[in-house]
C-alpha cells in the first residue's frame, strides 16, 4: 500500500505544502461542500475532539468560518481572543504553550499579528496547529479556499492567468496565494502602487507590474485585496479617492480581462475604494462563494489534521 498523501499534524503555511498535498486538501473539501446543503448541517467526524481558536488579532470572518467548520464536524470548540483572554502580548511562547497544553486540545487554530508565531507554537505543543494568519506572512486556509473556488468555477487552476492587486507589502493573502496558485500551475501577476510593494517583490514568485490595467489584461481571475485604511497614515497612498481612481476595479477596467473572468476578494470589501459596487455585486463576482467554500475547506483541513494526529480514525461524511 502506498503512503497516504496527508501526514501533517500542522498546517502552518503553503510554503511547506507539496502540490499533491494542496490537491488532496481541495479534493477532500469537495466532499464537505454538500454538508451545508443538508437539513441537519452536522457530521460526527470530530466528535470528542477539542479545538481551541486562539485569536490574538481581531477577526470576524476567519474566526467564524473556523467556528462553523468545527461545529459542523461536531468538535468541541473554545474561542479565546485578546479581549477575553489572559493570554496576552508579553507572555512568553513557552508559557502560552504550557497553558494550552494544560487544556489538552487536539487542535489549535491561531491568528497572530506577528509572523511565525504559529510555527513557534507548533514546535512547543503536541496539539495540531492551524495558522489562521500570522502578520503579513501566511494565511494558508485562505489560499486553499481561493484555489478551491477557482477550480470549482474554472474546472482547473493550471494555465490560468491570475492577477492579484492591492497592498502587496502588507498582505498575508497575497503571499499564500502566490505560493499556492503557482504551485498549481497558474500564471500569477501581482500589482499595486509602488508604495504598497515590498522590496524585491519578484522574490514572492510572481510577475510584478505597477498598473491595474496591465495586471488584468487577459486575466481569467482578478483578485482584489482589501485596502487597509490605516495605511494612509504611513503615506502608502494619499486618499481613497485617488486609490480608486488608479487601482480600483471598475466595470470599464474589467473589459481588459478575459470574458467570463471571475472577481475575487478575501473580504471584507471596501466598496468604492478597491472595488466598485457593480463589480462586487456583478455576475462574475465569486466573493460570497469564497465565504461558503471557506467553511468546506476548513472542515477538510480540520479533518485531515485530526486524522494525522490521532491515527486517522475519522470517518468521511
Amino acid at each position, binding site marked *: 500500500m502506498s503512503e497516504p498523501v496527508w501526514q501533517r499534524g500542522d498546517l502552518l503555511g503553503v510554503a511547506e505544502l507539496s502540490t499533491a498535498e494542496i490537491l488532496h486538501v481541495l479534493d477532500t473539501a469537495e466532499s464537505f461542500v454538500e454538508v451545508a446543503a443538508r437539513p441537519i448541517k452536522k457530521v460526527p467526524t470530530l466528535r470528542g475532539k477539542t479545538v481551541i481558536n486562539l485569536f490574538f488579532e481581531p477577526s470576524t470572518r476567519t474566526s467564524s468560518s473556523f467556528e462553523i467548520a468545527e461545529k459542523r464536524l461536531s468538535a468541541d470548540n473554545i474561542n479565546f481572543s485578546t479581549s477575553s483572554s489572559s493570554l496576552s502580548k508579553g507572555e*512568553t511562547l513557552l508559557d502560552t504553550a504550557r497553558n494550552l497544553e494544560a487544556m489538552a486540545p487536539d487542535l489549535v487554530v491561531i491568528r497572530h499579528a506577528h509572523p511565525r508565531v504559529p510555527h513557534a507554537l507548533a514546535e512547543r505543543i503536541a496539539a495540531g496547529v492551524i495558522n489562521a494568519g500570522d502578520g503579513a506572512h501566511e494565511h494558508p486556509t485562505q489560499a486553499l479556499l481561493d484555489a478551491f473556488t477557482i477550480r470549482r468555477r474554472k474546472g482547473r487552476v493550471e494555465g490560468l492567468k491570475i492577477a492579484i492587486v492591492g497592498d502587496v507589502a502588507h498582505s498575508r493573502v497575497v503571499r499564500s496565494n502566490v505560493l499556492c496558485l503557482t504551485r498549481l500551475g497558474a500564471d500569477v501577476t501581482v500589482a499595486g502602487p509602488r508604495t504598497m510593494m515590498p*522590496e524585491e517583490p519578484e*522574490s514572492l514568485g510572481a510577475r510584478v507590474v505597477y498598473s491595474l490595467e496591465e495586471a488584468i489584461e487577459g486575466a481569467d481571475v482578478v483578485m482584489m485585496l482589501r485596502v487597509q485604511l490605516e495605511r494612509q497614515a504611513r503615506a502608502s497612498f494619499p486618499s481613497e479617492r485617488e486609490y480608486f481612481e488608479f487601482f480600483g476595479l471598475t466595470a470599464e477596467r474589467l473589459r481588459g480581462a478575459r470574458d467570463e473572468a471571475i472577481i475575487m476578494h478575501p473580504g471584507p470589501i471596501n466598496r468604492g475604494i478597491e472595488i466598485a459596487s457593480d463589480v462586487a455585486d456583478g455576475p462574475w463576482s465569486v466573493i460570497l462563494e469564497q465565504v461558503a467554500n471557506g467553511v468546506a475547506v476548513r472542515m477538510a483541513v480540520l479533518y485531515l489534521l485530526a486524522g494525522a494526529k490521532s491515527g486517522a480514525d475519522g470517518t468521511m461524511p
Partner: protein
Amino acid sequence: MSGSLVIRGGRVVDPTQELDGPADILIEGGRVTACGPATDPPDGVGELDAAGLVVAPGLIDMHVHLREPGQEYKETIETGTLAAAAGGFTAVACMPNTEPVNDDPSLTEFMLKHAERAGWARVYPIAAVSRGLEGRELTEFGAQRRAGAVAVSDDGRPVWSAALMRQALRYARHFDLPVIQHAEELALSGDGVMHEGRFSTRLGVEGIPGAADDVMVSRDLLLTADTGGRYHLAHMSTARSLDLIRAARADGHRVTCEVSAHHLLLTDEDVFDSGLDPNFKMHPPLRSAADREALVGGLADGSIDAIASDHAPHHPDEKELDFVASPNGIIGLETTLSLCLDRLVSQGVIGLARLVELLSTAPARILGVPGGSLAPGSPGDVTLIDLEREVEVDPATFRSRSRNTPFAGWELRGAPAGTVVGGRVIELS
C-alpha cells in the same frame, strides 16, 4: 610581586612594533618594561609559559552593554567583565543605556568602582550624549571625562536631532572625546525588525532599509566636516555607510568606524533560515549578502578601524518571546575572538596582526586609552591566544548571565587562552 610577570616562549604579535615572532614580555609594576629576546627576570617575578601560544596586546571590546545598574537580571559588571576575561578581553567600554542612564559622573564612578572590585577586566564607561538619552540636553562631558568616561554616545538610540549632534561634536572637542553614534533614521526604520530586502518580503516582516543607517551617517558626516569634531560610527552594517566613511576620511575628516562580528558573518538570509529565531534580531539588523561582503572587504583594505561585539545581554525569557516582540541584541564577548580567528584569519581574509589591530590597537587609539601595544611603557595587559584549540560554541558554558547568541553549535578553531591585566594573571573562577 604583584603586577610583575614574565611571559616566556610565545609568538608575540604586536602591530605597533611591526612584531610577529618569538619574544618574551617583562611586566614590572603593572607596565611592560621589556619586549624582546629572553631576558633574565629580576628575582621573585612570576613566569607564564606561553609556548605554542600567541601573545597579543590585551584585546579591548569598545562596544559592550554591561546592564548594571538597573538590569542586573541580564548582566552585571561582575558577570560581564568575567565574560570579557573568558573571551580574551582585558578591557571593555560600556554603553550608557543603563537604568538610570549614565548621564552623570556618579554613574561613571559607580561603574569604575564595581569593575575594580570585580577585577576581571578594565572597564571604560561611555557617557551619554544627552540627559536620559532623550536627545535634548547635553550631559556634562567635562565632568564625565574627569570621572573616567572615554567617549560619549546615546547608543541604543541615535542622536536624532541634527542640532544636538552638531553641538555634541563641537563641545566634545574640548575634551577630545569621540562622539559614538548609533546611526539610525527612526522615521525610516519605523516598525522594522529585520533588513528590508527579499527575505523580509517573503516573510511579510516589516523591514529596516539600509537607507535608515545611511541617511543618518550621511548627515553626521556633514556635521563632522562642519564642526571638526571626532565621529565614531558604531556597528556599521551597510556597504553605502562604508563608502560614506571612506569618502569622509579621504577628505581628511576625523571619522572612525567599527563593525560587529555578526555583521561580518551573518546576513538576512540567516534570519530567514533560522525561522525568525529571536537570537538573530538586533539593531542594526543583519544586512544583505552584498553588504556583508562589502564590510569584509573594508576589513581587509583598512577602511574599517575596529571590530566590537556589541555585547547586548537579554534574559532567556525575553528571547522566548516571538521575533517581533523580543528585544534587540545578542551577546558576543565570549564568541568574537574565536569567530574572527576561524572565519577571518584562518580563511585568509585578514592576517593575525590586522586582527590584533582591529581588536586592540585601534580601539585603544579611538578611545584614547592606554594599551593596544606591548612596547615598553604600555600597560601590562596581554591576551594569550591558542590558534589550534577547537571549540564548539555552547551557551550553557558562558560566563555571561545571558545566553542570546545566534552562534550556538558553531565549531571554531582558535580560542582565547588567558588574559593578563596590569601584570596580574586572570584566573577564571
